[in-house]
């Protein structure tokens, strides 16, 4: 067998599973310690053929329907990297989000904000050889939720990545700069400072397109490569 690739364990910036300020974690977070296992071929391999999985690019969330969605048009772009700053090429970034009014196209979202018939809020992009991705969407609105009295989620975009291996799976949320709701959000707040700021995108004039859309930069860093040889 060839020399096995390994991936770093989670770093200090990952949230705990149990974070009582986010009330839903209380009945869903395991209480027993995780059992640490060596990374085997099971954990160091992962799926790669998107044509057999969720399908190809859907990078413009504003052109999926007959009309144009309401809201501030934005271009989100960045790179997917590993912890050694190497690009993660040909990996899928799945995206979903609320519309500009903060409402999801989901039957269980009962908040009284308008749905937009021209906006679904789902997309996926495959990174290029330099790990770059780019998608066009509208800035999602903030919305209330039932976690505690007067709770509001900051504007956010959900991002899901598989990376090269089972071990590199990541689902995160991208936030916007200067959002006053971020500091009082229990979900973002489960991530200790200063690492929470890793999830805050940066406004960028260079990727802003004149008379068209605002540009935001958001790089995504996946686990690895491992610093130590495979255990066991």
């Amino acid at each position: 067998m060839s020399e096995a690739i390994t991936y770093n364990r989670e770093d200090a910036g990952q949230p705990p599973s149990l974070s009582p300020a986010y009330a839903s974690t209380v009945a869903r977070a395991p209480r027993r310690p995780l059992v640490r296992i060596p990374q085997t071929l099971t954990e160091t391999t992962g799926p790669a053929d998107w044509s057999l999985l969720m399908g190809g690019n859907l990078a413009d969330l504003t052109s999926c329907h007959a009309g144009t969605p309401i809201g501030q048009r934005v271009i989100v772009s960045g790179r997917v990297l590993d912890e050694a700053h190497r690009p993660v090429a040909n990996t899928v970034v799945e995206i979903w989000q609320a519309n500009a009014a903060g409402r999801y196209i989901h039957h269980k979202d009962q908040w009284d904000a308008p749905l937009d018939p021209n906006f679904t809020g789902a997309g996926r992009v495959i990174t290029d050889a330099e790990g770059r991705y780019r998608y066009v969407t509208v800035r999602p609105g903030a919305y209330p939720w039932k976690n505690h009295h007067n709770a509001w989620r900051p504007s956010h975009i959900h991002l899901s990545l598989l990376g090269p291996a089972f071990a590199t799976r990541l689902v995160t949320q991208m936030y916007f700069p200067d959002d006053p709701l971020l500091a009082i959000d229990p979900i973002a707040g489960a991530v200790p400072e200063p690492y929470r700021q890793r999830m805050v995108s940066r406004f960028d004039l260079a990727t802003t397109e004149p008379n068209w859309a605002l540009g935001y930069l958001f790089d995504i860093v996946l686990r690895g490569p491992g610093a130590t040889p495979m255990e066991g």
Partner: protein
Amino acid sequence: MSLDNQSPELFGQTPWQTLGPFFHYGLPWKGGADLTGESDLGARPELAPEAHYVLASPPHRGPISGEAITIVGRVFDADGAPVPDALIEIWQANAAGRYNCAADDRSDLPLDPTFTGFGRSATAEDGTFRFLTVLPGPTPGPGNSQQAPHIAVGILGRGLLKRLVTRLYFAGEPLNDLDPILALVDAGRRDTLVAKESTVGPGVWRLDIRLGGDDETVFFDV
């Protein structure tokens, strides 16, 4: 300028965040839980208007070798309540014990080109998930050890700030006794990782996932 995603001094792993409750039109595609056929299993398209369910549909599959099996189970929280908004992902080798991934370069073992080994299923209102797949073969473990046939399982969803990872093994498999990962688990808790063949019929393997409580599933730090 305050610290943000682009600050070099903050460079490092992007933090995990929960999927929240509204991921069904964005993640679980039709057929995501059917690794061998062309059914719609795995998705819950009824949770979004039809025009807004934009995820891919099942691909065409060629012949896939091995023993066809069904994996079925339910997800429960620490109070024993079913979890209706979880997402289960699986990753496994094919019947010959090879992963469909360039990092598994054991070219002496056959690959089934249309068997990805990856599956995704949203849980139903009663917490049920179901996969159609094949029984995986044994795979190499650390050193010269051999891993018993198993499936890696990820649990994501509302209330889960980060993915939980467990494994599914098969009851009665003789290699279980030699498996290097099962050996790291207290004997009294190993049952939480071992699916049992259902009385419903042969080839139907059942394993429930308990996020907490007395029978809490063993979760791994990988």
